[in-house]
């Protein structure tokens, strides 16, 4: 049963600290998405990659957020420095990118609390 995995599941940190969230997409999937879910804004697309290349990160605050795919099995989302307003659930999703046809599958999310 192929699944997207995310670590950590929960993270509590203090304002100003660096936070790194990791995602392992489903093996063979070449498209990876990062989302943020908050009560106020709902689910927002932050960035996505295809074949490890960033295609769109327009939804991501550029000054403190960065997303990378060091290899095909790992995607990372970093926040440095973190702020209380970054508290949210961050989801990774992956898809077998066949253009218009693909469906994305979500990981369990990382719940981040910045104090």
């Amino acid at each position, binding site marked *: 049963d192929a699944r997207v995995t995310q670590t950590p599941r929960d993270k509590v940190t203090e304002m100003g600290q660096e936070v790194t969230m990791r995602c392992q997409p489903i093996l063979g999937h070449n498209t990876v998405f990062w989302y943020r879910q908050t009560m106020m804004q709902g689910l927002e697309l932050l960035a996505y990659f295809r074949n490890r290349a960033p*295609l769109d990160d327009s939804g991501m605050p550029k000054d403190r957020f960065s997303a990378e795919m060091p290899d095909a099995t790992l995607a990372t989302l970093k926040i440095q420095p973190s702020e209380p307003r970054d508290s949210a659930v961050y989801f990774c999703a992956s898809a077998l990118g066949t253009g218009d046809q693909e469906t994305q599958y979500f990981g369990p999310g990382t*719940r981040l609390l910045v104090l």
Partner: protein
Amino acid sequence: AQTVTQSQPEMSVQEAETVTLSCTYDTSESDYYLFWYKQPPSRQMILVIRQEAYKQQNATENRFSVNFQKAAKSFSLKISDSQLGDAAMYFCAYRSFTSGTYKYIFGTGTRLKVLA
């Protein structure tokens, strides 16, 4: 800009009964996909059903079916024979793929309670 609206913050249904969750959207694009995702307390987002805009036939997945009205820009989800395990947040989502770029827009969700 595209928008997705779920006007029902919360719905309740008796076990074994049928419930319909509403979703409307706005777009000027002609080619897009629509989805319903379920998010139980475990937090996992689970794909329930998808609909291609170019297909007139409504999608069906076991007890889940949609009523897709393209002209009205409406995409409702019907759950038949509701089960306790159906209790969750349900999100309607819109996706387009234009010039090599995805747009994903999610609604604010409807919390479904299933009463025993």
